[in-house]
């Protein structure tokens, strides 16, 4: 009798402090078979547990093309994330997943790609960006527009630098007005504004957007101004979840289950949804 609720055990092999209250865990399955056989596709998420505290939902932030480990990035903002945040290298966490649908990599092949992320919205896109960059020749121009409230709040700082150095990636990093430091060389402005200034071409392009609800809302408008059709704009939705597989009944947006039908949706699909997220 297979019990859906029992998590796999994973060891925290590395911890990166990304920003205030934000950490990335590098996780490896304790079970050798799981280590060898575990597969996921970019866009999917999992339920991570701090034993004695409960479970939390995060996307898998590492590339599906890199095997043997997964990474997740989370902000400390509640009881369970607080408990996870306090764990150290060598500690054990629980993992259930992967759950949910995936980014449609096939549809993206041969296209110019524009990634738009705000704050803690970069982790879901990171999995996709890394996967795309691992197969760079399959895609056209790549533009990444990423912003956070302040310089401190930018996550994956080393990765951002690396992406900025690559000649085959156009990396635009921004912080909200007032969030810049004296030595800040990136843009100052809100993500939707910076996106419009960057003005990536909408021809043969797809855009992927993730971030706080307000940022998503205005970025979708900016993309529309830039000529992107809603079916070429992808976003991921978040709603509170418990089970991750369509039973516990709380992530639904109207009759859409974010955990099963999502978390990845086109802007067209989102526009058709009732306002319940």
């Amino acid at each position, binding site marked *: 009798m297979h*019990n859906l609720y029992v998590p796999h055990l994973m060891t925290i092999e590395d911890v990166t402090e990304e920003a205030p209250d934000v950490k990335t865990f590098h996780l490896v399955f304790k079970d050798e078979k799981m280590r060898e056989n575990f597969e996921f596709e970019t866009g999917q998420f999992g339920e991570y547990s701090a034993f*004695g505290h409960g479970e939390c939902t995060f996307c898998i932030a590492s590339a599906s093309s890199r095997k043997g480990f997964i990474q997740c990035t989370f902000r400390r903002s509640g009881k369970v994330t607080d408990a996870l945040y306090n764990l150290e290298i060598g500690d054990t966490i629980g993992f259930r997943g992967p759950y949910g649908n995936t980014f449609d990599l096939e549809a993206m092949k041969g296209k110019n790609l524009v990634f738009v992320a705000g704050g803690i919205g970069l982790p879901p896109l990171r999995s996709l960006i890394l996967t795309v960059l691992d197969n760079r020749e399959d895609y056209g121009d790549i533009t990444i527009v990423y912003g956070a409230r302040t310089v401190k709040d930018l996550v994956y700082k080393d990765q951002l630098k690396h992406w900025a150095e690559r000649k085959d990636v156009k990396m635009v990093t921004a912080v909200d007005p007032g969030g810049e430091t004296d030595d800040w060389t990136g843009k100052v402005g809100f993500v939707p504004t910076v996106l419009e200034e960057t003005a990536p071409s909408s021809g043969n392009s797809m855009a992927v957007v993730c971030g706080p609800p307000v940022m998503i809302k205005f970025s979708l408008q900016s993309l529309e101004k830039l000529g992107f059709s809603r079916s070429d704009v992808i976003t991921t939705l978040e709603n*509170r979840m418990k089970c991750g597989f*369509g*039973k516990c009944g709380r992530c639904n947006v109207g009759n859409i289950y974010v955990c099963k039908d999502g978390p990845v949706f086109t802007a067209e699909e989102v526009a058709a949804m009732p306002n319940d997220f």
Partner: protein
Amino acid sequence: MTLKLLKEDGLKKLIEALNKADTRVVGPKRNKAGMVTYDDVNADTELELDEVIGRYSPKDAFFPQHETVMRYKLDGKDVHVKAETPVIKETVLLGVRPCDAAAMISLNKVFTWDYVDTLFTERQKKATIISLACNNADESCFCTSVGFAPDGTEGSDILLKKIKSGGYLAELITKEGEAFATTHKSIFENAPAKADTVAIAEPTKLDIDIDRIKSWLDDKEKSWEHPLWEQLAAKCVGCGGCTFVCPTCHCFDIVDEPYGDQGKRVKNWDGCQFDHFTLHASGHNPREHQPQRWRNRFSCKFKIYPDRFEKKGCVGCGRCIRVCPVNLDITEAMTEITQIAK
């Protein structure tokens, strides 16, 4: 369909036989607070078969209100986990109402689409449902308004109908029901050519049209921001009682209960009427206000269930009406929407 006869002492004999076989019997029983609920029954004298319907639904037999799913033990940096494997006995739900039997089919769809929750299905597989047709409806009953009937057979393995002179006529609905009657063939006797059964309860609340309600809900432009939700929720205190007594409500929470360095992970019933139910860690809440939560519950019953599970989300048992501390009546909303959607 095969008909059998349970004589006046049939239920007594049946429960005795089931006790002997170590089969769990769950039926309507009066609890210490004086309410009829569905609980373990060891003798026919405990059964409250004349009660219109139990206060809570018998869904607890397949989907316990609190259910341990796994146990863990911390061991330095390691953790040991163990799946909970509950001992699930053969079970007979005896004397439940046809609406509750039908609700189990709806619940099954939720717990089996794509991912199969074996904690539910194993219990359901080991259960025989012997329901009892209703001879009386109270003012809250409305099964006939949502496409069911007081003598409906959906979800039942065997349906009993009371005979005027005593005993029951047993309709064997499913193969499992047939097999059950064969196992207990000395109790399920051959039915007489004609049995004079007690009249079935009359249909109630005829001014409701659930197809019309469904198409109104489908039309998001018309229904999503309708002032009706505000009106309905104005009285609602958000106690969630309706969701707990509902036989098709399936929402749950998953929490850890630690005891020192060990503990268990538990599935607990939860409900969409609570303010924290959809609250994000960021503080954002998609359903911050009671009207949004009311709209969700109503939509879940009459749109989400039919859309996603091709089943009815409401079986018309009326429990949400009986339990509501502020006398909110879902059928009033259904009647009003039936009018609006004309």
